[in-house]
């Protein structure tokens, strides 16, 4: 069986992706440690968690800027911009493939090509994660990093409470996104194929 190889992930994307992954994982672990802190032993000492969380958040924010600028000035942006017609039926089709078709050995309904890096479900979830979730996470995170600068009350509740709750909710949703993202990345030809793509830049698939 021949193997199709497409160069989909240029170096800057791979570098951005690995930095994003490492920072996000550290932020999740330190965030959980802070949220569930006890007076006894903690997953990570509180002060270390605060330091690591802040440092990784700064790197993640800069890295996010790289992502946004990269998508504005390189071809990578088109994967997030061009929305398909009849999105809902296509989303349903992709969902059915993951839920049923995959076990019947059906072919991918939206095979990866140079022009179509993401299937409809990926596209929608990536756009929401990167262009809605991440900005909310970063803005609320900056507010918490400079608590003395934020409004005392927002919508009649403490400004700190507002931003912290928003930060925790968005952080949690993005963590669930990460979990599903990691799992769907095992759905390539072999469980490790898609992970390999993010290392060498080539998407590989048996034809």
């Amino acid at each position, binding site marked *: 069986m021949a193997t199709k190889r497409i160069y989909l992930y240029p170096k800057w994307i791979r570098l951005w992706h690995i930095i994003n992954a490492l920072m996000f994982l550290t932020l999740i672990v330190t965030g959980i440690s802070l949220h569930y*802190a006890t*007076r*006894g032993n903690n997953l990570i000492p*509180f002060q270390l968690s605060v330091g690591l969380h802040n440092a990784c958040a700064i790197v993640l924010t800069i890295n996010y800027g790289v992502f946004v600028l990269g998508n504005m000035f390189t071809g990578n942006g088109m994967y997030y911009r061009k929305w398909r017609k009849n999105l809902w039926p296509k989303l349903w089709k992709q969902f059915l493939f993951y839920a049923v078709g995959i076990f019947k050995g059906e072919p991918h309904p939206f095979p990866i090509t140079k022009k179509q890096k993401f299937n409809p479900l990926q596209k929608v979830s990536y756009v929401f994660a990167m262009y809605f979730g991440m900005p909310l996470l970063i803005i609320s995170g900056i507010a918490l990093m400079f608590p003395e600068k934020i409004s005392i009350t927002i919508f009649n509740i*403490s400004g700190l409470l507002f931003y*912290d709750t928003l930060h925790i909710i968005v952080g*949690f949703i993005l963590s669930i996104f990460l*979990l*599903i993202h990691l799992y769907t990345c095992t759905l390539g030809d072999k469980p490790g194929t898609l992970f390999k793509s993010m290392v060498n830049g080539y998407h590989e698939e048996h034809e």
Partner: protein
Amino acid sequence: MKNPIIVLTIFLLAIAATLVAQTDDTLKLKPSYFEVNDFVEDNEACLQCHGETTFIIEDPNSGKSKNERMYSERAIDRDAFYSSEHKAFACTDCHSYEYTTFPHSIEARMEEQFLCLDCHGYDETFAKYHFEDIEVEFQSSIHNIEGFTCWSCHVPHSYKAFMRNADDLQEAILYDNNMCLRCHANFDRFTLLTDREEIVVVESHDWLPNQAAHFKKVRCIECHTEINDSLLIAHKILPKTEAVQNCTECHSKDSRLMHTLYKFQSLEERKGGFVNGIMINNTYVIGANQNVWLNRLSFLIFGGTLLVIGFHTFLRIRKQKKN
């Protein structure tokens, strides 16, 4: 009295006479003072000097007089006094009648100053304040040094029981912290009590993340006292080596803030599903203010996601085995 000019002149003169009779001193006495104190006029005998920044001292022999500055420790702000806990008092309730003569006699100056326990101790009326326990705590406090009394922090002429009646916790925190900073941020005052080196509060707390937010949101005594469950406000100030430096003492579900700052209102245990919910009226403390409902929902979603992934994986493995 038929001449209207004469009538008008008499009328104007009467008004002018009233205004002249109203001396500067009288104008200083606000109506609110009379609402809370029956001895305002009597107290003025003292406050005409102690309520001012300067006073006049006269030598009856030479007839000379001199303007002296009032030492800040002896100065009393009328507004502060008439809104303090002791607002209803006459000066002579606590100070000897000897002081009513000026210059004050040496006998008057020898007078022992009353301390809190002298009036409030062992009295059922004040039992709920636990003054006796406060005294015991003070005895074992780092503040128990020569010259340091209750008054060093709780100035009797202006003291307010702010925390106990706090409508605005923020204001109460500021009031309370200023009590500490009066000496700890003023080396001139600090040296009156100790020979220790100057403490630069901002530098000695540079380990504290978001220092400004901490100083604004909690009192110094949150970390610098030993918790005492029978006292609403702990008075055993600890040596600096024993001060709390472990973040999770406050930033945790069983936060010590519930035993200190929020002790007054801790009956309101949960608000909107938030652990230590009373805190969120004032702030949000990471670790201490988890929302129980959000926590449960997150466990549910996380568990559900893992279940779906697990089931999907199982079906994939089964399919692979079949092939």
